[in-house]
């Protein structure tokens, strides 16, 4: 079966081509069938391969499709590397991707761009699959860019709305900044190793560079790749595009900004863990940026009122946790969190979509409330997702988050404290969201109240499946202390080099129990506080910004980071553009062009006298010319 793995990206690619270049008059049913069916096909192939892989010896298989680029000593094949890491990612992408497609077929019902939507979505899945399946950095880069493009297309899906287009452009440009770093990293990799192939690089790396001393080249490579990851995975300083990216349709947010695209950076670092383990300086930087992002984004999430914005900042924050884990060298833990986060964040985004659908497009939580009676399935599944992200056992988030915190504690209790702080905020804003949305009285208009309805089965079934995954997904990585065997860790053993990594020293069981108790205790306390504030006292955030106290104002405006970037980068850039427009464009370039035109005109004017229409004069000139030519040929030959 593994030889047919190329079918996995091929199905959605065919779907994309059919939907893009097929008839414009595809009915919604047909578009949805092509869109969902192709992903389902990919998922089935992936699942069969996965099962076969599980029963085998977990050895990586390289499937060569065709020679792609072959020039001089560069020889890049278009091939797939199928191992435990890429298979797990493929399962997540196709599995959750299919659920989101199914959900979309109902959510996007009646949209004029229905077919276009599904073609973009399919292209997105193709790119993401290429990204994780490629066996060298070039194929990964192709997917990497494809994902960036699709996010642009999907965020700006409703292109008639200017702010949405701006959000799309912002996402694209921010990603491009990161991609530049990634590209430079690739160039440096090629210069150092003479190859783009994962297996060759990772085998050569320990021989080329003495692992006991840190090499500057290694730090440069890993840092440049990390810059790419900050763009794609929304870390400080390139995170601001992700909250704005909520302009796209809600299932898109679920697909791109929660479950798959933003995990690209994390996947890339896990894939390159051999290189990263050789650069402790980079790892330290990643740790710092990760935890800073985690806390920073979580605090912003505390006061946001748009249901999708809260989830967006929560995504940024959770991604921060993943990078935190990566920085600590706990690659498998980061991956575990990627997986559980994909489950519960997709669930919550789809749940939010269901709420927005019921509210006829309203996204502001201040106009919601009391929805649990009207939308019972959405409410219960959303609550499961919230419990999972808050880290309440036995939901999925508990295990992964706890593993991250344990790894942090093993490094230093201060890091653990910071991690716990972030987790505390997370729990609070998530339950704030739940209480504001689903509890209390309905605060919207009576017309909206009249329309409230549970979503159709195509939307609730994905919710229920994801809720089940959020509930049980954590059992794949039950730590030893709780009687598990941490299946994920052993499964990824063939990909992740634990020896060179700075993996957590072993904590004794008593400490681990204490850590778990502490994080669960903190989470419970925060739930109670949120309940008192928004459940019992029924506080509703003010609609008037003047009522806020200073810290709230700061958080509500997202620390004015967008404004800061505006002043620091956008405004000077505009200024520079205007300057170059008035000087270089208008004076120099236009000047050269005009001068050429003037020269031709002037020359013609001068030569006009010869064109006097007198045949005898022409003849005379002809004779002179011929004589001159002959003279030149004879005497100067």
């Amino acid at each position, binding site marked *: 079966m593994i030889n047919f793995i190329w079918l996995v990206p091929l199905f959605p690619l065919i779907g994309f081509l059919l939907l893009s270049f097929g008839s414009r008059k595809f009915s919604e049913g047909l578009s949805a069938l092509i869109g969902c069916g192709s992903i389902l096909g990919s998922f089935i192939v992936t699942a069969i391969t996965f099962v076969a892989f599980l029963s085998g010896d977990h050895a990586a298989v390289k499937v060569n499709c065709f020679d792609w680029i072959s020039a001089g000593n560069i020889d890049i094949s278009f091939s797939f590397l199928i191992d435990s890491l890429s298979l797990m990612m493929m399962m997540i992408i196709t599995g959750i991707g299919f659920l989101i497609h199914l959900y979309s077929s109902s959510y996007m019902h009646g949209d004029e761009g229905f077919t276009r939507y599904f073609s973009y979505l399919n292209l997105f899945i193709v790119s993401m699959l290429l990204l994780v399946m490629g066996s060298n950095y070039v194929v990964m880069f192709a997917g990497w860019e494809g994902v960036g493009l699709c996010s642009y297309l999907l965020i700006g899906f409703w292109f008639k709305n200017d702010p949405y287009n701006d959000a799309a452009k912002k996402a694209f440009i921010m990603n491009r900044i990161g991609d530049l770093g990634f590209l430079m990293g690739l160039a440096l990799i090629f210069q150092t190793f003479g190859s783009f192939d994962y297996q060759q690089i990772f085998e050569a790396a320990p021989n080329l560079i003495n692992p006991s001393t840190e090499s500057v080249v290694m730090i440069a490579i890993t840092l440049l790749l990390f810059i790419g990851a900050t763009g794609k995975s929304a870390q400080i300083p390139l995170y601001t595009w992700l909250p704005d990216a909520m302009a796209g349709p809600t299932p898109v947010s679920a697909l791109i900004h929660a479950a798959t695209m933003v995990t690209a950076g994390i996947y890339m670092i896990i894939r390159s863990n051999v290189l990263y383990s050789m650069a402790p300086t980079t790892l330290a930087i990643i740790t710092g940026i990760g935890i800073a992002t985690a806390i920073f984004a979580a605090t912003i999430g505390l006061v946001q009122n748009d249901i999708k914005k809260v989830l967006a900042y929560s995504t940024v924050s959770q991604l921060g946790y993943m990078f935190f884990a990566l920085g600590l060298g706990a690659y498998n833990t980061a991956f575990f969190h990627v997986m559980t986060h994909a489950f519960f964040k997709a669930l919550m985004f789809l749940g939010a979509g269901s709420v927005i659908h019921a509210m006829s497009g309203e996204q502001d939580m201040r106009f919601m409330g009391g929805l649990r009676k009207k939308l019972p399935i959405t409410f219960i599944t959303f609550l499961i997702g919230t419990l999972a992200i808050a880290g309440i056992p036995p939901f999925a988030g508990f295990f992964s988050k706890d593993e991250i915190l344990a790894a942090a504690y093993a490094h230093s209790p201060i890091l653990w404290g910071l991690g716990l702080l972030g987790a505390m905020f997370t729990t609070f804003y998530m339950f704030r969201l739940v209480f504001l949305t689903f509890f209390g009285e309905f605060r919207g208009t009576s017309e909206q109240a009249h329309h409230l309805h549970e979503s159709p089965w195509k939307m609730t079934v994905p919710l229920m499946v994801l809720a089940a995954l959020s509930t049980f997904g954590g059992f794949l990585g039950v730590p030893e202390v709780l009687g598990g065997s941490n299946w994920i860790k052993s499964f990824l053993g063939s990909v992740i080099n634990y020896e060179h990594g700075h993996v957590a020293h072993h904590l004794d069981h008593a400490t681990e129990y204490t850590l778990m108790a502490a994080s669960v205790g903190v989470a419970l306390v925060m739930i109670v506080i949120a309940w008192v504030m928004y459940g019992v006292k029924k506080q509703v955030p003010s609609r008037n910004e003047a009522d806020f106290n200073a810290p709230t104002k700061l958080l509500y405006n997202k620390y004015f980071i967008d404004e800061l970037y505006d002043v620091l980068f956008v405004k000077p850039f505009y200024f520079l553009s205007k300057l170059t427009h008035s000087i270089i464009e208008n004076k120099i370039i236009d000047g050269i062009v005009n001068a050429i035109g003037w020269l031709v005109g002037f020359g013609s004017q001068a030569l006009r006298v010869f*064109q006097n229409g007198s*045949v*005898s004069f022409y003849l005379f000139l002809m004779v002179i010319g011929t004589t001159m030519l002959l003279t030149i040929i004879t005497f100067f030959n």
Partner: protein
Amino acid sequence: MNSFLPELSNVYFNYLLLSSVLFCIGVIGVIIRKNIIIIFMSIELMLNAVNLLLVNFSNMHNDPNGQVFVFFIMVVAAAEVTVGLAILVMVYRNTGSVNIDSLKNLKG
């Protein structure tokens, strides 16, 4: 004298001289005369000067190909003359003159 053509014998040189003179007469005729018919005749003179030269060289190299070639040129020249004269007639009909300066309509 014969710095260009050192191996030329006297007879050949004379013919060369004759055809050059004929050619120059043709050129000067083209330049200084205003009558189109005279100009046309001068052109023919140039053409035949070249023909003469060709025969001369052909003889010199003992190669009859050049002379055969001259016959072909004369055939083509005859055809060319008909066309040229036809144009000339048309010019006269349109302008009422055979002065070359009457054709100044193309002044830029």
